């Protein structure tokens, strides 16, 4: 550690801004200390402090001229790297009908940050983990984040809302910065934490710090910890929260919560986003725009027009159990860094520390799955590729199968899905119902503007496609024993390619039984193809309809009525796709027929936008349905399955 005069900040500013870097640091603006671009040392909040309490923030004059004598303000480095609103790509329909998708790249702007607290450095690490070290890497975030110089500040004067010492992220800057500063009157104690930091420090006028300087900093950090506000008991917090999903406190806090999204917006780690189509008036071109979103909006969880989380209590539960619970299973750390922003900027004055204590006022614990390591991130621009319709098969009144010529499906596994899109209309997840070389099939029901338009496509026309995404059916685990396949309605689509492969491999799949239920005989998908399977030895088809026609001679009634010990066989493994209610009854019927939960796989559905685990919308407890699913072994999701508002 080195000792310098505080006047060396002038030199540090020069060095940080070298080569045209934008310097971003704390400054007084609009009645708060915000994090914004500054050029001169005088723009630091010299002589200011912030006094914070739940839902209140005030600036006050200090009795000294400290430059870093404040805590964290309303914004953070998040907005610099994860833009509040940004264009992902432009989509256009050219005069000849061909489509084009052009990625929008953020302009490279090198940045230097100064005055970043340990809590916010931790937040940057948390977001780096989400956007750069998950299964998919976000290039927009990466472009903004790369090559950032970071000058941290040890936090000597925490506020009453701070709890970084509880979360283990502060007050001392120990990683994630090039330099760490401590302000002591007109002196600075400076530590280099990286080679770049060493190089910066070498250009300052500084002398080696003494043992008493080290002791002063240690004492200052101890004093800082002692001055923090209410502590949070973080031991097994994620497991204690997940054991209390039905806690009456959720309804109570919902009576005070405004569901306004302020907490998630000011949170330096919250990463949920929405993606919307901004089309030009002529309808020929559009921009795909990504914007900050929040689990407190209704739209965040909307699936087929209905919100999974309609009640404020369900949204509050999603937020707090994700931030302090599921996050651990997803990213191997808490999503909270103890910065206190969600308390200060809550218009309803809710203190998350009180809520955590109230929600975990018992000894219950529910284990969560451990975080999946991810060694090989792949870049995901979210920009569609152009695909062409080869042929169109009408399966029933409102269901069509599109056969597409599309690149990039070499690694496809049955059960995976694609994101299909049309310029100016939008994008939706559609399961892949078959693959044959460079041609892939998608079976689509017309239920909205996009699926209507997709169903009207003709051979030769183009569309956008991303994928394949997600985890498919565990064919290798199914091989060797009897396999039961249960499908409801269009739920047969994501099972079809799995069925084809099992039928084509009678050596490994000797006993295959398909139970298929549809509304009417006309709604049975792939009827001709299924008739071809019936002759295959070891294959049995049990089809049923809700409403029979005059010529129907098969079963009538729900598909679960066909699942009996004699039709299923207790050694079977089962894969299911259909509406959640149908799957729930199916799982129960299978259990009665002797097939336990750990030999059953289901496919889950939640609101998906990005399909890569980066938009946060399709969460199901500790999972992202898009990348951890959509296929789950039932015991993985059993505790969440069918539960209201999860």
């Amino acid at each position, binding site marked *: 550690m080195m000792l310098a005069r505080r006047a060396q900040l002038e030199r540090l500013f020069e060095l940080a801004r070298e080569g045209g870097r934008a310097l971003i640091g704390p400054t007084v*603006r609009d009645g708060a200390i915000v994090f914004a671009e500054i050029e001169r040392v005088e723009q630091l909040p010299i002589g200011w402090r912030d006094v914070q309490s739940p839902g209140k*923030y*005030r600036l006050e004059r200090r009795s000294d001229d400290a430059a870093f004598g404040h805590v964290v303000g309303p914004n953070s480095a998040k907005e610099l790297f994860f833009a*509040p609103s940004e264009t992902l790509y432009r989509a256009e329909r050219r005069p000849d009908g061909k489509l084009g998708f052009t990625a929008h790249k953020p302009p490279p702007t090198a940045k230097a940050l100064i005055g970043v607290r340990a809590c916010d450095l931790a937040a940057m690490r948390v977001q780096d983990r989400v956007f750069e070290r998950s299964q998919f890497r976000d290039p927009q975030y990466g472009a903004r984040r790369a090559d950032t110089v970071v000058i941290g500040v040890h936090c000597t004067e925490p506020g009453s809302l701070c709890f970084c010492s509880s979360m283990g992220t502060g007050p001392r800057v120990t990683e994630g910065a090039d330099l760490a500063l401590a302000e002591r009157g007109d002196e600075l104690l400076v530590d280099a934490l990286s080679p770049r930091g060493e190089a910066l420090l070498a250009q300052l006028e500084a002398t080696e710090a003494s043992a008493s300087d080290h002791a002063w900093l240690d004492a200052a950090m101890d004093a800082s910890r002692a001055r923090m506000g209410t502590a949070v008991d973080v031991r097994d917090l994620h497991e204690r929260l997940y054991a209390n999903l039905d806690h009456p406190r959720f309804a109570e806090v919902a009576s005070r919560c405004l569901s306004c999204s302020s907490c998630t917006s000011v949170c330096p780690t919250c990463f949920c986003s929405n993606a919307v189509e901004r089309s030009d008036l002529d309808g020929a071109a559009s921009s795909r725009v990504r914007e*900050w979103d*929040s689990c407190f909006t209704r739209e965040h969880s909307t699936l087929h027009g209905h919100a999974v989380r309609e009640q404020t209590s369900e949204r509050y539960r999603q937020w707090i159990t994700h931030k302090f619970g599921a996050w651990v299973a997803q990213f191997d750390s808490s999503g909270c860094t103890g910065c206190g922003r969600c308390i200060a900027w809550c218009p309803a004055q809710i203190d998350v520390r009180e809520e955590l204590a109230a929600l975990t006022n018992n000894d219950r614990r529910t284990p969560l799955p451990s975080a999946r390591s991810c060694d090989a991130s792949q870049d995901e621009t979210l920009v569609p590729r152009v695909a062409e319709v080869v042929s169109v098969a009408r399966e029933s009144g409102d269901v069509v199968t599109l056969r597409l010529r599309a690149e990039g499906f070499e690694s496809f596994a049955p059960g995976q899905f694609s994101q299909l899109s049309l310029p100016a209309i939008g994008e939706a997840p559609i399961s892949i119902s078959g693959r044959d070389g460079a041609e892939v099939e998608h079976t689509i029901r017309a239920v909205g*503007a996009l699926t209507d338009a997709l169903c009207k496509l003709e051979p030769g026309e183009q569309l956008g496609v991303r994928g394949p995404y997600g985890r498919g059916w565990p064919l290798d685990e199914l091989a060797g024993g009897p396999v039961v396949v249960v499908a409801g309605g269009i739920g047969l689509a994501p099972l079809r390619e799995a069925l084809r492969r099992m039928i084509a491999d009678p050596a490994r799949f000797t006993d295959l039984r398909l139970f298929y239920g549809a509304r009417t005989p006309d709604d049975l998908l792939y009827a001709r193809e299924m008739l071809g399977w019936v002759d295959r030895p070891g294959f049995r088809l049990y089809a049923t309809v809700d409403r029979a026609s005059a010529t129907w001679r098969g079963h009538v009634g729900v598909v679960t009525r066909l699942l009996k010990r004699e039709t299923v066989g207790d050694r079977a493994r089962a894969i299911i796709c259909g509406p959640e209610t149908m799957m729930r009854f199916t799982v129960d019927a299978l259990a009665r027929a002797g097939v336990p939960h750990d030999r059953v796989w289901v496919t889950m559905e939640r609101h998906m936008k990005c399909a890569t685990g980066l938009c946060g919308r399709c969460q199901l407890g500790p999972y992202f349905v898009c990348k951890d699913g959509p296929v789950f072994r039932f015991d993985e999701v059993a505790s969440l399955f069918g539960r209201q508002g999860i």
Partner: protein
Amino acid sequence: MNAKPRLGVFKLASCDGCQLTLLGCEDALLALAERVEIAHFPEASSRTDAHGTFDVALVEGSVSAPFQLDELRSIRARSKRLVTIGACATAGGVQALRNGRDVREFIETVYASPEYISTLDASTPVSAHVAVDYELRGCPIDKQQLLEVITALLVGRRPEIRDESVCLECKRKGIVCVLVKRDEPCLGPVTHGGCDALCPTFDRGCYGCFGPKERAPTSALAARFARDGMVPVELVRRFRGITGGAEAFRTESDRHE
């Protein structure tokens, strides 16, 4: 190519400000005129077609007088899509402040010759009388949202207008919360966004002109205002503004009366 879709712009009880938003689209209005036939828009042109049929009808204003009810039903019958624009058409407007009061007394107090006034007891939103395909909020409406609704209807998709709080717009813009930093009684947390946080951008509290958002726990916000010292009479006024006729704001306002 088919004929262009026909657009009609109508007004009931209103100040014309929302129609002015359409006029104020300037260049975009010219682009719009390329895509649609603006068949009836008295605010913009004396060449009108009040009795024709329309692919899209934009209706401004509330139903405040008996003749407006007949006119509205006629518009609905002749329009494939009916979009209401603005606080009057979607919540009854500022004129809904008379609802539940003695209208006759108002008329006699205000007008020199009250016998010429023909009015309904209440000012009501269009959706109280006919089916509405889409509601566009605001006093006045936002130009970008208007263009988005028209564009989406032309393309055949759902408009990308999100029912979320003004807070999210503030936060995306980097506006420092006026309620937190100085107890300014801002309705943003319970108000439908779409204005791009216009008032907070100018360091003022939101007064709710876009009406309540989908989940508008007004009592939790009123409780905050009360903790900051707001007296009941002021709470009544705060929620009884331009969109005071909207249910969430009306019940909150009534609760403090």
